[in-house]
């Protein structure tokens, strides 16, 4: 029993520990970068980037699970895709919100119609449609099938959306990470924060997955 509990919650525990470490690093460890006279605004970067990564990861999981569902018709895959899409919308919303909070001091406005922001917004709408299709479909199995189609089409659309909007001039800061623009401490903080959010995502996905599995079971018992 005890071992079972550990196996069930180790990801969540690891996530909590990593998030506490990340908080310490973000506020006390990492050097201050004063940006346009705002010494603290830049620190949101360490939450914003991991949230972006998790949002993208979740939609990638939706894509893969959707293909797997259409191929195997195993409800497990639909459950994964559905749970991951819900989390993806939460993290995309967080991505837009943290971005806006940063944009206000940095750019003076909450929102600009910049390529990356616009792409994120379009992404958000595609996956809201993904959830709506399920509830509009009537039957559950049909909804799963329709959603899987949208999970594939929507994900393939993302690079084209990004490409189209990137042809406009971009205002979003270019990804510094790949150009070596971050010093050691900043890089370490970002990495810990990335790991923390990935653990958080994985444990949330796991909880949502088993919750939905229990819902299926309950419904099938009720029908008998």
């Amino acid at each position: 029993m005890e071992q079972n509990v550990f196996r069930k919650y180790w990801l969540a525990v690891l996530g909590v520990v990593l998030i506490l470490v990340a908080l310490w690093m973000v506020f006390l460890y990492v050097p201050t970068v004063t940006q346009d006279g705002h010494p603290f605004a830049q620190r949101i970067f360490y939450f914003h980037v991991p949230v972006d990564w998790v949002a993208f990861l979740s939609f990638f999981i939706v894509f893969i699970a959707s293909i797997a569902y259409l191929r195997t018709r195993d409800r497990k895959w639909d459950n994964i895709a559905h749970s991951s899409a819900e989390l993806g919308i939460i993290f995309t919303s967080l991505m837009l919100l943290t971005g806006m909070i940063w944009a206000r001091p940095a750019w003076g406005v909450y929102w600009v119609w910049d390529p990356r922001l616009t792409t994120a917004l379009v992404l958000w709408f595609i996956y809201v449609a993904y959830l709506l299709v399920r509830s509009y479909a009537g039957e559950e199995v049909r909804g799963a099938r329709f959603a899987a189609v949208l999970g594939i089409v929507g994900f393939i659309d993302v690079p084209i959306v990004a490409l189209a909007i990137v042809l406009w001039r971009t205002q979003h800061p270019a990804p510094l990470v790949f150009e070596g623009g971050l010093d050691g401490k900043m890089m370490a903080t970002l990495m810990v924060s990335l790991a923390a959010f990935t653990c958080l995502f994985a444990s949330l996905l796991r909880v949502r997955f088993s919750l939905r599995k229990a819902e299926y079971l309950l419904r099938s018992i009720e029908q008998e």
Partner: protein
Amino acid sequence: MSTLGKALAITRKDILSEARSKEIVFSALIFAILVIIIFNFAFGADQTSMTLVAPGILWVTFTFAGVLSLNRSFVAEKEENCLEGLMIAPMPREVIYIGKGLGSLLFMVVIEIIALPIFTVLFNVSALSLPVIVITLLATIGFAAVGTLFSALAVNTKARDMVLPILFLPVVVPVIISAVKATSLALTGSGWSDLGSWLAILGAFDVIFMVVSFWVFPFIVEE
């Protein structure tokens, strides 16, 4: 009968039924002209601001008229249970996609052929040039490729009229952006070389979504 022949038979059926009812083209066309006129009220009539907003107006009009006509594409099939007839026909389901897609493309092109000159006259812009026509054709192929897939999906849901725009609009965002930008360049007299990258995005979108939709369509019309 070859695969293409079967698809064309479906398209022919749609054209015949449309020629008799004139349901899709006529209503979508009236709608498109109304949208153009409403926008004229919204933005005032001075020439400089018109040239600036004209490409946007054109593509909002074509997008909404497209949604309207795509929405009808599978409604008749569903209401008269014709879809079941198509599904028991001895052919792969992908053929239905090609046939219906060609029909929708044709109807939208007819609407655009009539709406473009009207737009040119009312807004005093030179929209009847070869670049604008090429852009319109490429964008409309993209609309038909995605729209036929989502139209077949929407017709099997409860709120069918609402579902199509909710699915369709975010996915065709790259088409709308590219079409508006390219049209704006074309209207201000830029050459083909300036349009290149936008036309490339439109072309890439068309090819990718024709292939993907072709592949996933059978999953939509399973029952």
